[in-house]
């Protein structure tokens, strides 16, 4: 691998890592700041999934063409399938329990 | 150096979850926070290069224990929620903290190496305390003795193989007994 390619790859990995940390940060802020269960489930499922996806993407890029990359990709697939399902399960449980979605103007819960 | 940063952050996480799990009044909340504690512990084991212990913690701590505890409270009643935290009995807490501090002072100072602090692990096995010699011996001889690359795995599955096998039998028996009990309690 040439010097340039190596540099490009390192740069890409760093960008992915930074993006991952940023989106995980946003999801943490969302989980703490948003007003009710349903809104929190949004960031938990979406922003967090993207953050995790970017970081694992960096891991995949680091491994390049080794066999381990398959595991990392599989991890990515799992996260993308299970995260929204888990968020949905929590939101559904909240709905069935009778928790009303928050609308603007109400007090935060 | 950065490893120690991860380690200290993890330690903070584990301690916070541990305290929260102990203090939460609602048992369901405590179970959920305890699952978070298991997450931290598993990471810790992994960071200390004991992946198989981490794997066990992941499977047992977060998976099986959570479900068993849930089943337990399903079979019992849930108290009405009026307070978020348990009330602390301060004299008892102080005594406990003191005891814990003494224990930590005696044990932690005897630990020869702190792996995530970046100190090198002694591999020679000649100099130093008895503990260091034992650690050094296992680190140096494990691969030649057993052909297993990870020292922790080697101790668990090779040197103490029969022990681990016995443990597995106990866990399996407990699982079977649990199934029997649960099935018996099924009615309607």
């Amino acid at each position: 691998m040439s010097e340039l390619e190596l540099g490009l790859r390192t740069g890409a990995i760093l960008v992915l890592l930074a993006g991952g940390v940023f989106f995980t940060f946003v999801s943490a802020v969302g989980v703490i700041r948003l007003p009710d269960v349903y809104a929190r489930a949004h960031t938990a499922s979406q922003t967090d999934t993207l953050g995790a996806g970017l970081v694992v993407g960096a891991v995949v890029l680091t491994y390049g063409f080794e066999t381990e990359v398959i595991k990392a990709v599989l991890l990515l697939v799992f996260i993308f399938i299970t995260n929204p399902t888990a968020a949905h399960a929590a939101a559904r449980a909240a709905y069935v329990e009778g928790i009303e979605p928050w609308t603007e103007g109400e007090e935060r819960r | 150096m950065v490893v120690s940063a991860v380690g200290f952050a993890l330690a903070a996480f584990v301690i916070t979850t541990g305290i929260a799990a102990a203090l939460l009044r609602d048992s369901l909340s405590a179970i959920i926070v305890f699952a978070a504690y298991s997450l931290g512990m598993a990471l810790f084991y992994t960071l200390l290069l004991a992946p198989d212990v981490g794997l066990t913690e992941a499977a047992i701590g977060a998976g099986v224990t959570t479900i068993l505890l849930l089943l337990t409270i399903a079979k019992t009643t849930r108290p009405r929620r009026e307070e978020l935290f348990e009330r602390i009995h301060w004299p008892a807490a102080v005594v406990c903290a003191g005891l814990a501090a003494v224990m930590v002072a005696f044990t932690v100072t005897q630990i020869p190496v702190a792996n995530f602090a970046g100190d090198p692990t002694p591999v020679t096995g000649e100099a130093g305390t008895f503990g260091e010699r034992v650690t050094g011996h296992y680190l140096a001889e494990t691969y030649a003795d057993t052909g297993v690359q990870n020292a922790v795995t080697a101790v668990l599955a090779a040197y103490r193989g029969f022990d681990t096998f016995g443990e597995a039998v106990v866990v399996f028996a407990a699982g079977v007994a649990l199934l029997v009990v649960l099935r018996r309690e099924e009615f309607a």
Partner: protein
Amino acid sequence: MLVPVGESVTLRQTVGYAVGVAEETDASAIHFVVPVAWHSAGDVEPAVRREVETLLDRVQVWAREDASGTTPAVETAIIGEEQYMFSPDDYAGVLADYADAHGVERIVVDPEYSPGGNVPLLRAMEVSLVERGYTVEEAPVETPVRRSRLTRPGGAVQFGLLFAVSFLFYQLLGGFAIVTGDTFDLFYELVTGTIAAGIVAGSLHRVTMSERPRLRRLGVQLVRLSLYVPYLLYEIVKSNILITFIILHPRLPIEPRLTRVRVAVWGGSPLTTLANSITLTPGTLTVRADGQYLYVHALFPSAREGLFAGTLERAVRFVYYGRAAAAVATPEERGDTELLQRPEEDADAGASVRSGEGSSEETRREGERSEEARTEDERSEEARTRDDRSDDDRTPPGDGGGA
């Protein structure tokens, strides 16, 4: 004391508990009542009536069994026949009327009792009763574990497919030593992999697949799915940037609404794919799936509009039904969209969805059907007795939609 009863597994224990409490507190009478939820005024079907009467007879016998003396008196009644009962509030109202007529203050509830059939109205009904000033108490009963059958008839295809997937997964975790290793590795991985995959497939092939898989169609769908995934990723990244902006915005400009969409996909995996895709694209979260109805929580208006425009739905239709099926009218054009939480026009009404209402397809249909059946003056009658929020919920589909 008043005990609303219905068919439930813990009914026997509840009766025993109620009698015990009545004796302790020296209550003069226990009233076991069945609120009958038939919307057509007055004419409960004879079969239903007989069923309810048998139930009440049974309860009466049990109560006599448990009572030590002749006090307290046991009374039974069927209530609410003349009234339209739909929401938890309606049930609570009927119970309250009965309680007032008989001078009852204390109400004991069977935790497994469900006033609206399959709809979980109980909790909301209890809250409503407490608000009306009654002492409400849940009988401490042991809930039996419910189990449903998971297994289905299996077949060679199911077994084969599951075996292949498990075997592949096993080799994958083993780092594909079967390809990269030497002869011993090949042999070892082959044998252990076959055993492991055999155990998995043998024990689970009756559980994993809901229908008989057709291999060729599965292949085509996988190819189309591989086209769909990049598109989904693009959507996820695009809208995540928007949601990031919103979350980090100091004022948190969100306008969350619960909506209901009748989507044009059906069956297990297509619906799951669509629901998960909706959840993954920021701003929308699938809260509940009920047949073809998806209950989606939308965080802000543009997310809602995107949902109603149905781009994801079309993409999922493409994956599962082919390119020709992708061209379909948007849910908004079909009139399959509905806002369950306060439409903009009366945004200050303080309305929100109540737990029971619309939470089950059955009640909703039931409600719509009776809505059509009932006459105009009945409707105005009801408008007086019911508060305004429930009317929002029964807006016909499409009306409150893309407002």
